[in-house]
């Protein structure tokens, strides 16, 4: 079951940008693409934990600001020659509001 939490308005995030949601399990980066798709990933590059939320968003990918790994916003997988994956969270937009599924965040807390 999903546990949708209303976190912000879509317009609180710039296009081709990201902002973070602080959680007890670290920050989750909420990305908004040039075309208003929204994605949520742990804000930590699989390489050296760089803040993905500070990267440049292009298409449905983000380039990590520390060492330029490119991460797919859709799958969390590192693209190109690099190998690694960052956890993703379900997120959706309804009436201009962003809803984040906190199920995994809660499950991790229990585990």
């Amino acid at each position, binding site marked *: 079951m999903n546990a949708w*939490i209303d*976190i*912000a308005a879509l317009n*609180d*995030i*710039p*296009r*081709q*940008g990201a*902002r*973070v*949601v*602080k*959680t*007890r399990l670290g*920050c989750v980066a*909420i990305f908004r693409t*040039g*075309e*208003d*798709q929204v*994605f949520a990933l742990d804000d930590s590059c699989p390489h*050296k*934990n*760089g*803040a993905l939320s*500070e*990267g*440049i*968003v*292009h*298409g*449905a990918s983000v*380039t990590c*600001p*520390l060492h*330029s790994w*490119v991460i797919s916003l*859709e799958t969390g997988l590192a693209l190109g020659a690099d190998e690694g994956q960052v956890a993703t969270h379900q997120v959706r*937009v309804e*009436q201009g509001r962003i809803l984040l599924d*906190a199920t995994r*965040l*809660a499950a991790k807390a229990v585990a």
Partner: protein
Amino acid sequence: MTRKLVVIGAGMASGQMLESLTGIAPDAYDITLFGAEPRGNYNRIMLSPVLAGEKSYDEIVTHDAAWYRDQGITCRFGEPVVKIDRSQKHIVSAAGVTPYDKLVIATGSASFIIPVSGNDLPGVIGFRDMDDVEQMLAAARKPGGKAVIIGGGLLGLEAAAALNGQGMEVTVLHLMGNLMERQLDPAAGYLLQKELESRGITVICKAFTKAILGKEHVDAVLLEDGTILGADLVVMAAGIRPETRVATDAGLHVERGIVVDDAMQTSDPDILAVGECVEHNETVYGLVAPLFDMAKVLAQSLIDEPAAFVAPAVSTKLKVTGVDLFSVGDFAEGEGREDIVFRDPARGIYKRIILRDDKIIGVVMYGDTSDSSWFFAKLKAGEDIGDIRDTLIFGPAFQGGAQADPLAAVAALPLDAEICGCNGVCKGSIVTAISDGATDLAAIKAVTKASASCGNCSGLVEQVLASTLGDGFVVPAESPMCGCTTLTHEDVRRIIKSQALKTMPAVMQECGWSSLCGCASCRPALNFYLIAEWPLDYADDAQSRFVNERNHANIQKDGTFSVLPRMWGGMTTPDELRAIADAADKYNVPAVKVTGGQRIDLLGVKKEDLPDIWADLNEAGMVSGHAYSKGLRTVKTCVGTDFCRFGTQDSTGLGVKLEKILWGSWTPHKVKLGVSGCPRNCAEATCKDIGIICVDSGFEVSVAGAAGMELKQTEALAKVATEQEAIDVTVAFVQLYRENARYLHRAYKWVAKVGLDWVKARVVDDPEQRAALCARFELSQSVYRQDPWAAESTPEFKEKKWAPLTDLTLEAAE
């Protein structure tokens, strides 16, 4: 007894519904139709062609009074319904009460009138009905009339094109960054804007209307930025608002529109609603296709036949003669989505198909929409296009066909496009030289001088050769700018300049970018090139900047930032040092470091603390040191004649002056300066991008040093007698570097490429060019010589940029 049906509203949905109803059950109801307008039903979609003079009112009438009469419908046109009494089951109008068994609300929508002062002045109108059109046509008959259209969506642009065609001077104000942003992506929006501008329509995007001015009648529109636009007519086309008043007053369930179920029934079982006034599944509709679907469903419901409205895919075509534009689908949705993009700069064509799981979910086309129905059919059918994916974008005629032409962008350049900026050589001269027998770069260089100076345009010259000679010429492989284009940095820069491209979508379209909106490599470069070329026109795009420049601080490996205030020429005061110490204490700064650039770095500051620490440092008179930027970093100095017994000139004073002139400017890569007061060179000036050594007789300016991964001594550029000349030569050099170097090339790399002599010829030997370079630098600095810390430590920025979106750690644990 025949049941009584009352219909409120005589628009298109209402007309369609009555046509369906009388078609399937002519005698089911005794029908009374109320309409606020004193006329029957006409095709509202065709108001734009009427406004443009391409059609007359009579041609767009769909149901006139006679038609309604023939169907046995009692028409009460020009008689608005003021109230619904649900307990008595009657409605109230000017003539009294009319009872109903079933009631249909089809009140449509009204133009959204933006809430600014003056919005009720005569001359301010919407664009919804024939009355509006008549008012607009009356205004257009006045010679030299000016119209301002608020809203750059479908309706606003149709009005703009029509009024422009009627001879008015038209300005379109649009709140968003590109026209029709709900239907078009930025690339197609750019092409549309270009087309409208070529017709003489002024388009202002990101325009915030502050007020509408005038006493008896509108005479101007005031924007937030202080711009005043003269206006005899203001058309509000900023959206529509469902007309729900009568339903709200009756206590029906109303959200944005009157809420209906799949059978078009409202919260009252005897009241139904249809058209633009309704909300179905949280969606409000404004295009005609779904409204007609609703009308048919409602007719079925009225005769108690089960029927359900299903929202269809809706496509958009702009009804402006000569503009081919098509858009369908919702680009905003869908994970696992892929794009196929095709651009033909020569013909102004842009096509984009959005796929998910090998099915088309969206299409945007501009310039050539001939295949739109083919794509639309595949979208509606949900057809699997996996097998034809590779050639899908070329449409039905080209299945298995051609490849995109990598030379298209250069082939598209007009003959008067300047290819070589140094020697002023246009494409036409090169083409002429080729037809006269030149077949390679050296021959072109010899005949036309193109690429004979800095050589930056040699790639472009080769592309002209290739596009002119065809297979007779093979372009030597030089690395393109990035995977999004086949052009080199230099090619792109030349095209930005010669074609006056002033936005990123413009560059991507005209240079034939193969990606939708660039990548992490080309976007920062393009952002810089556009800033450098069009300082007054181009708006810096923060999202195309690397994190450090976006956040005005250097990111550290743990995600914290470093804060480094400017110390002009390396000079500071006890008060500044106290303020730095206080800030370090207040924000628990873990490390304080003296840098090689003669200033103090505060390392390990949390992102959300940045605006506060900046505000504190601003308070003490300090500004950003730009230790993070591809721009001016530091000017390192020694104490010079002020204190040093060997000093020959005021090196500190010169350093401070230079830093105050140069700070805030953006450059291809970082720029560091040093000014030493004597040849002992204590400021280590001779390994900087620009180093000045003071001597008794004046100043030795040298450039192109490096002390990083490469170590290189500066080369002498000029020896000048006065401090002012030293400043001018330095500023001119920086500007020449800004205008010509490839993004991320340090000055030494660029000088090695173009040659020191080429630089000298412009910066030193030719006083006119030097002065012009300095003037262009100063123009740019009129925009960019400002402190980003002060700009972004405001409460608004704190909330919108620096704070987390939300903090779930504060939620109670469950």
